[in-house]
């Protein structure tokens, strides 16, 4: 316990830095993934060929172990933040893409017809009707992606990107159980915390479904 105290005394800045770095990598990766996957998902609903290719391609990537994707980026891109973000973005795209496609596909035709018939222009229909109604399913995809990314970001430490995995790696290297526990618990708290927050946001935004 005192060793832990010592660690904190000298390394508390690193600790905080690692938490922030972890969240940073996760956030950037999910943001990139959203920028790629959401338009692609919407495009898939309008073009059958795009849909088929996307689903096959990204479906395949989901099955490959995330570590493999992470490490295979190294010979191509090098070590550090960049390959970590690239690999995590690739990881985050499939759930967002698949959910976005599904979300826009299952929009009830009658509601869109009513909106068009009322004289909404395509932009109004898209932003006022389609997007809010597609949101729950898209968000679930984003939520899944965030949980996976936060989890896999622990591995980013292996390729030199920092993050909470760093603490665990140090613990493994120095055979220090206290560090292992510190790292393990912090990551667990961050994961569960993020999951809980996302759940709250989701419940707020879909109140109308549960009236």
């Amino acid at each position, binding site marked *: 316990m005192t060793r832990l105290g010592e660690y904190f005394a000298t390394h508390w800045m690193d600790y905080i830095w690692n938490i922030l770095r972890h969240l940073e990598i996760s956030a950037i990766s999910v943001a990139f993934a959203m920028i790629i996957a959401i338009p692609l998902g919407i495009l898939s609903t309008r073009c059958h060929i795009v849909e088929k290719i996307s689903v096959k391609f990204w479906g395949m990537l989901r099955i490959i172990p995330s570590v493999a994707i992470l490490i295979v980026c190294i010979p191509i891109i090098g070590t550090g933040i960049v390959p970590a973000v690239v690999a995590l973005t690739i990881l985050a795209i499939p759930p967002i893409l698949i959910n976005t496609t599904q979300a826009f596909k299952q929009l009830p035709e*009658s*509601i869109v*017809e009513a909106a068009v*018939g009322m*004289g909404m222009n395509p932009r109004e229909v898209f932003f006022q009707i389609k997007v*809010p*109604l597609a949101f729950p399913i898209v968000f679930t995809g984003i939520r899944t992606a965030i949980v996976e990314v936060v989890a896999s970001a622990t591995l980013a430490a292996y390729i030199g990107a920092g993050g909470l995995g760093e603490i665990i790696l140090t613990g493994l290297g120095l055979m220090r159980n206290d560090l292992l526990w510190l790292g393990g618990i912090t990551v667990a708290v961050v994961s569960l915390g993020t999951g809980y927050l996302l759940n709250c946001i989701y419940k707020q935004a879909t109140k109308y479904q549960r*009236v």
Partner: protein
Amino acid sequence: MAIAVEFQDVVKRFPGAGYNALDHVNLKIEEGELLTILGTSGCGKTTLIKLINRIHEADEGNIYLSGTNIKDIEPITLRRGIGYVIQQIGLFPHMTIYDNIATVPRILKWDKDKINQRVTELLEMVNLPPEEFKDRYPGQLSGGQQQRIGLIRALAANPKIMLLDEPFGAIDAINRSNLQDELLKIHRQSRKTFVFVTHDITEAMKLGTKVLIMDQGKIQQYGTPGEIIEKPANAFVESLISSGHVDTNYVRNGEGI
């Protein structure tokens, strides 16, 4: 009497169909009429009203709305001036009743007080107390209540003409009867032009100041309910009347328009 809608030799074809959806249709609808369009599936009745708000475009011929060719009006502007009610209702589930009704007024940039007033008076018109209903969501309403909202949503921006495509088709018999009575009341009070599509002859006779009977894209007969019952124009119309159960107590007749 002013003409609200006029069809001049309109033809509409859908790719792959054996016959024309609308075959040289000529029609004049007067202002203030409640025209019911009656026919079986595929007769062209839904296509006809969808040509009025340009959801479909005519292949030949012209359609005039209060004297203006609708081809000269931008479709979106056109639709904002027309009330459109469909069978599946199509209320926006993620918006409150208030927001649903206020949709077109907001697009037309009415000011807030005017919208408030309009929503309140519309809800009162259909006996749904505003304070109770304006903040509810469609999911909380019954089918009959939802379609009432669908109706007043279409009336919200005070359009000159209302298009209704089998609006009560998905409602149970008891509620349907109530809704029909409400529609009659609304029509009498608002004096707007209504075009109402149905496959139910009883409904057509009960609601229409004029009835249009269609089959295979062609007009079979156009007249008041009374005229149609007493003087069917051809064998088709005759069989339609005899097959349906037309209760002559519920036939709209000779209402001063």
